[in-house]
């Protein structure tokens, strides 16, 4: 959140002659490079004509008439594009596998995975809402390359606006002959329907997603067979993330060579991140692969608000990892993130400041994953639950010696033995916080102290009598009337009544006359 002071300072910094600064001159936009988000805010997503006016659906005729399906696949392979859903598998190779796979019934399918469920992530939603035709165009091109005649957009029902936008886009594209039979007179048929998901996080895993589309319970199954061999209803199926699809028209139009000129050696192109948490400028950003975390958090994000100190970034959603300040110059690509113990994931970046407790953070993500585990395999179902129990004990001051080692042992088995990606990556937040912030864990377990002063069981709120002016602001905000004291006299916190909500601390720090008269011990 922006504090009032941040807003005034950014206004003041503009030269007075500039009536309206150009977008590209603002820090937030300066180093971004928009490919998948190329039409962000520039068009009305409900009007296909606006997409066409901005050059949309130009790649489709090229793919239909000027290129063979093999050439399309080769172009995508040349581009070096890797799956934007998280695992980073090379898209061209995936397409080639699906293209070459035999289908017994003759059917092949393409699927757009928009089951975005990470807390704090909104890449897929924004793309579908802002530029649904880019995703559709990518799907038609992909279907042509792989010989698929039917496609599905699997989008969670919690995204009603995205559902409306993509549904409308499909109708309009059908009206214009860009979807349906004999697309643009090319003899190529391709239909797309929208499947609304029930919101289970695990349905973003491709085998669970397919089960859900088929109408069965959304639980993953072992691979092989891979979806490219045997997917929906036993037919070859190619599943790509929303962002991957949105990149395809660019690649076909401007060439794989051009695309591969952006990014790093192993990770090509740009990546969308949702930059959230304790950072001044929150929002969706798209940057070339290989940009350092420092540039993302400080140049684009504008740093940590309220003058607090930067502590870490959680990359890749709940099953991603925590990257500490010491690695702030890490260039963000698939390999570098993996080396740091994190993952690219679908692109969530949660910035944390010094007021974040890393044990509490790990507990939060693990609880999320516990709720979202499908329950099929033992390590994920039982192991994550046990991890959450141990982490809860630690943050509630019941930690005992050996807990950290027990967490590591559980993490090892869960990572190695789980059936699907959810379980295999679930221990990441625990492992990375232990790796980089072991001292915080030890402080909780051995000394029952929370260094970030977050864990309620280990802190108390007190008034500094010399500083307190008795302004009564804290008395007014306390929801349980735990603070007393006459006006102009130092106040007192009744520790028996106090629920440690922190309201008094916040108001004293920022709005009270004295300021900083309440401290956390």
């Amino acid at each position, binding site marked *: 959140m922006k504090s009032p002071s941040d807003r005034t300072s950014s206004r003041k910094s503009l030269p007075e002659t500039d009536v309206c600064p150009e977008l590209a001159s603002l820090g937030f936009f300066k180093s971004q490079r928009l490919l998948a988000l190329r039409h962000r805010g520039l068009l009305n997503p409900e009007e296909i004509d606006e997409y066409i006016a901005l050059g949309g659906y130009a790649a489709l005729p090229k793919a239909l008439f000027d290129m063979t399906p093999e050439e399309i696949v080769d172009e995508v392979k040349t581009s070096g594009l890797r799956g934007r859903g998280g695992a980073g598998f090379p898209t061209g190779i995936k397409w080639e596998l699906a293209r070459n796979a035999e289908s017994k019934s003759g059917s092949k399918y393409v699927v757009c995975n928009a089951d975005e469920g990470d807390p704090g992530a909104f890449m897929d939603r924004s793309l579908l809402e802002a530029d649904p035709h880019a995703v559709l165009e990518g799907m038609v091109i992909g279907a042509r390359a792989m010989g698929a005649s039917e496609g599905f957009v699997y989008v969670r029902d919690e995204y009603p606006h995205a559902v409306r936008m993509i549904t409308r886009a499909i109708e309009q594209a059908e009206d214009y002959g860009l979807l349906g039979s004999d697309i643009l007179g090319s003899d190529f048929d391709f239909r797309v329907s929208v499947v609304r998901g029930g919101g289970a996080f695990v349905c973003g895993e491709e085998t669970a997603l397919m089960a859900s589309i088929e109408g069965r319970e959304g639980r993953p199954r072992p691979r092989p067979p891979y979806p490219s061999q045997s997917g929906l209803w036993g037919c070859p199926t190619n599943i790509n993330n929303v962002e991957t699809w949105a990149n395809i028209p660019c690649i076909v139009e401007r060439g794989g060579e051009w695309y591969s000129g952006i990014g790093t050696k192993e990770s090509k192109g740009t990546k969308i991140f949702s930059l959230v948490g304790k950072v001044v400028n929150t929002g969706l950003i798209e940057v070339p692969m290989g940009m350092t975390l420092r540039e993302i958090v400080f140049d684009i994000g504008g740093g940590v608000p309220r003058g607090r100190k930067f502590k870490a970034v959680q990359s890749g959603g709940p099953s991603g990892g925590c990257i500490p300040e010491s690695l702030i110059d890490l260039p963000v690509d698939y390999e570098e993130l993996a080396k740091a113990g994190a993952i690219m994931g679908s692109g969530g970046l949660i910035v944390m400041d010094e007021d974040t407790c890393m044990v509490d953070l790990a507990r939060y993500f693990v609880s999320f994953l516990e709720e979202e*585990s499908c*329950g*099929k395999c033992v390590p994920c*179902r*039982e192991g994550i639950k046990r991890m959450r129990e141990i982490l809860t004990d630690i943050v509630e001051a019941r930690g005992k010696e050996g807990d950290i080692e027990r967490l590591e042992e559980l993490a090892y088995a869960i990572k*190695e*033995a789980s*059936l699907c990606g959810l379980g295999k990556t679930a221990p990441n937040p625990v492992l990375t916080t232990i790796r980089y912030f072991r001292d915080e864990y030890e402080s909780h377990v051995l000394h029952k102290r929370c260094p970030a002063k977050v864990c309620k069981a280990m802190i108390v709120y007190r008034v500094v009598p010399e500083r307190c002016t008795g302004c009564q602001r804290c008395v007014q905000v306390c929801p349980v009337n735990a603070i007393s004291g006459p006006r102009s006299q130092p106040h007192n916190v009744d520790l028996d009544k106090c629920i440690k909500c922190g309201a008094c601390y916040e108001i004293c720090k920022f709005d009270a006359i004295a300021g900083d008269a309440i401290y956390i011990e």
Partner: protein
Amino acid sequence: MVSFRMNRRTLKVEDGTTVLEAARDAGIYIPTLCYHPALESVGACRLCMVELSHRGRTGHVAACVTPAVDGSTVKTDTPAVKRIRKTVLELLIARCPEVAILRELGERLGVGEPPYPLENEACLLCGICVRACREIVGAEAIGFAERGAASEVLPPFAVPSARCISCGTCTTVCPARTFELSKVDAVGTMHGDSDDVRTRKCVVCDEHYTSS
């Protein structure tokens, strides 16, 4: 034919044979719980994890769902494999401390009391009953409800299902002996038409069976 190494031996098996089947044929022990030779394997219990090396890559896979690959190497007994199995079995014992088969496996694998607070669940959630009901009986009267640790085997919407023919297959295949037919009837959820189908007790083995 597929030729691959398992521990120190070379095994030759038919295409499509799983690592587990190949091991069983060769007399090499790999523990399992959710595996049943008559049913589709789902890789749920993860006790059959083995180390698989192929084309320079090494990782852990579930033997029951992994086809043997020509030229690969499988190790069933590495310290890492034992470490994984130990944790998985401890997690299961902590869930179902009273289930005999887990304690027997524990003795065989050297896994004792788990380091977690004990629960007292009867069902391992291995899913053998669900698969048998679907694949063998064809009734599909039971399935998984809820998710994660709250998962349960139930008929649809947890109401007695007319699809259940009270055949008792679920009770027979259950490795934890969670379903005893008499108990199932008492619970009244597994056997929807139990009023119409009488069960009798065998005078020899004391097991219940259906008479119709």
